[in-house]
């Protein structure tokens, strides 16, 4: 049923937005731009596995646009979008290789890709290749954050797989 999926997409978008705004309100752990958990991605991953690619794309793009409006930071919009697009492309390309039990692996790969995309955008914006020095730290934080958000989505999905959320 399409209506059911539509409603679930809206709910997931709202959840993702709340997670995004709350995370933004917490002071950063490190003085490095881009090191964060990315809690909102739990809901994108959830949508990808529970509803499908198109719905996940809706959750992600709406969250990025609305999140940037809510937090009022246009700079973060550019970085968010470049990282988000790149990692989402990777996500839909690789999804077929990763069943639900390996969701966390896909999440890690996408998180790392997201950070690489953001850094590439930063290099482009500042015209300074020197900030590529952050690459190792961003890959490391991508692995940790990706594993965490991926496991969150995976464990929830595995527990509710009996519930009828499909069609």
């Amino acid at each position, binding site marked *: 049923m399409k209506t059911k999926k539509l409603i679930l997409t809206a709910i997931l978008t709202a959840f993702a937005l709340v997670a995004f705004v709350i995370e933004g309100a917490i002071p950063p752990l490190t003085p490095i*731009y881009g090191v964060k958990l990315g809690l909102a991605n739990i809901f994108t991953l959830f949508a990808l596995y529970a509803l499908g690619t198109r719905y996940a794309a809706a959750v992600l793009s709406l969250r990025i646009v609305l999140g940037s409006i809510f937090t009022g930071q246009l*700079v973060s919009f550019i970085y968010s979008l470049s990282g988000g697009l790149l990692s989402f492309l990777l996500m839909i390309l690789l999804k077929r290789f990763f069943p639900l039990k390996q969701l966390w692996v896909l999440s890690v790969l996408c998180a790392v890709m997201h950070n690489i995309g953001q850094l590439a955008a930063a290099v482009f914006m*500042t015209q*300074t290749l020197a*900030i*590529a020095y952050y690459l*190792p730290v961003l*890959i490391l934080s991508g*692995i940790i954050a990706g594993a965490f958000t991926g496991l969150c989505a995976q464990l929830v999905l595995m527990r509710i797989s009996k519930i009828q959320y499909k069609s």
Partner: protein
Amino acid sequence: MTNRIWIVVFSFVAVLCLGIWLFISSVSSQSMIVGIYKDGSLVEKIDLNSVTGEREITLSGEYGDNVILVSNGRIEMKSADCPDKICVNHGELKSSTSPIVCLPNKVVIKFEGSTDGADAKTGAVG
């Protein structure tokens, strides 16, 4: 188990990244000449050894002002109007491989060295 293989792969990459990070952040600069860049172009070049007293440089950008404090042998971002304050939290510029960066205002402060490899990597500047 596929999961186990992935755990090993990711752990390996993580440790590798940590190693590289620790290595490059420990490299301290030989030269004391710093360059201040705004929007990718050089604003000012300062030899930190020849600075006497304290001096403030203010750069205005899209997201307000960046105030750079220069004193003998020392340069830091004193204050910034950008939302994240990452450049201010960076503190004093110490390593040739870790520049002070303000992404919102596109300000970069880094050591200029002709002897180390860092300069070749930053060739895109200017």
